[in-house]
């Protein structure tokens, strides 16, 4: 019994000793060796669904050891040509002590040629980070887009980096529509536009919601989005001829979509939200809407679903500013 105990103890001591030795071993630091070649890297800077009309933003970094040469050009090729506003920055940015981005011009403004966007360097540059803004064209809706970033150096070397594929959302978006009680009050989801009382009869078949503001004693009515069929909630409104469509309207609070609200909340409404929305029992009106509130809307024919966000309200002028994301169901 005693011998076994000692044996065991000895074994334990050896194990502890070994563990102690290994933990004391120091890892030697070596200065990284500079790769003697042109190198590049890309990060995507934008988050959330890719909606037509918005930018997908990338930062493209490239560098070559000064002994080998300098940068000649940078190019981005998209699988689907970007809209006209697509560009590759001709400035390389750094962040100064105050946290501001300071740009240093390294070449001429970028040129779009079909699917390619190119910047040619005019200054001796060995390292640069250029930002690329791909303005999503409406033709890309529902498709996937990929990007190939490439750079060339004066010694003839070239590198490339592929990004994507990224899915472009089906939905449409419109920002900052002004609505005003009785004058500019007729909202069409199909056109994603607001019509005045004078223009409404011509577009009567497309009008889904009426905006109104009422201050009625004893009740809270305030700002409202009401389908033309909900006559109870259209006090004092004389509908223009032919405006008689219904809609399903569901009030929402605390859904401040990043694209629509442009506030600090990282919430995004995507195609999937519209697809999975259940509005079977929703009413045809929403009253007492406040700023930063919203409503889900489904048109009478079920063709469109939309999210109407209230950016701001003004009780004095009986007006509001709204933004819409819309998804075509069929």
């Amino acid at each position, binding site marked *: 019994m005693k011998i076994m105990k000692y044996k065991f103890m000895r074994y334990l001591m050896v194990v502890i000793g070994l563990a102690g030795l290994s933990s004391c071993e120091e890892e030697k630091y070596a200065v990284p060796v500079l790769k003697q070649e042109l190198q590049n890297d890309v990060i995507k800077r934008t988050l959330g669904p890719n909606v037509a009309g918005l930018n997908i933003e990338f930062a493209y970094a490239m560098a070559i050891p000064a002994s080998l040469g300098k940068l000649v050009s940078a190019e981005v090729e998209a699988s689907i040509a970007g809209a006209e506003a697509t560009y590759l920055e001709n400035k390389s940015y750094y962040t100064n002590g105050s946290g501001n981005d300071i740009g240093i011009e390294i070449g001429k403004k970028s040129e779009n040629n079909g699917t390619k966007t190119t910047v040619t360097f005019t200054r001796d540059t060995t390292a640069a980070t250029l930002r690329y803004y791909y303005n999503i064209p409406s033709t890309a809706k529902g498709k996937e887009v990929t990007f190939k970033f490439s750079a060339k150096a004066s010694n003839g070397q070239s590198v490339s980096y592929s990004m994507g594929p990224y899915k472009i959302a089906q939905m449409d978006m419109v920002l900052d529509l002004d609505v005003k009680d009785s004058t500019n009050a007729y909202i069409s989801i199909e056109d994603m536009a607001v019509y005045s009382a004078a223009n409404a009869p011509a577009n009567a078949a497309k009008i889904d919601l009426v905006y109104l503001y009422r201050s009625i004693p004893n009740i809270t009515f305030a700002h409202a989005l009401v389908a033309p069929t909900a006559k109870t909630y259209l006090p004092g409104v004389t509908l223009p001829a032919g405006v008689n469509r219904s809609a399903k309207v569901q009030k929402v609070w605390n859904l401040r979509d990043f694209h629509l609200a442009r506030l600090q909340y990282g919430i995004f409404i995507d195609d999937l939200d519209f697809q999975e929305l259940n509005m079977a029992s929703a009413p045809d009106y929403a009253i*007492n809407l406040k700023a930063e509130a919203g409503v889900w809307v489904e048109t009478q024919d079920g063709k469109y679903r939309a999210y109407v966000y209230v950016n701001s309200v003004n009780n004095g002028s009986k007006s509001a500013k709204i933004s819409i994301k819309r998804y075509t169901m069929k």
Partner: protein
Amino acid sequence: MLKYIKAIAALMLTAGILISCKEDFPVDEDGLLITARTQCYVSNFELLGADFQTVRTENAIIDTTAQTINVKVFYGTDLKNLFPQFSLVTDAKLDPKITGAMDFSDLANPKKFTVVSGNRKIRKTYTVNIAVQQP
């Protein structure tokens, strides 16, 4: 040495018998503990709209004698999609259970909810009367 082992074994055996013979705490069909409490009432009532914001214009009036809850809601409240929330006395539970939005639009036939006491022997049915604010 052996003596000690024997003593410990005997002790553990006795303890095991004693513990295993003790009756389990009684639970009901929902797996909730049935206690000795006989209190049976609603202590607070809340009503939320489809946007999960309150639709009450004032605090709900709960009459525990008449077993009624009178609540006044905003003009234009969508009565078909409301989420009721009950606060009950300790250990009590509600029947039927609330699983999602409920339709309160039939004002002539108000919804009824039964509170079941902690000992599951006392049942009190509360009627939720909704009045809509009028201009």
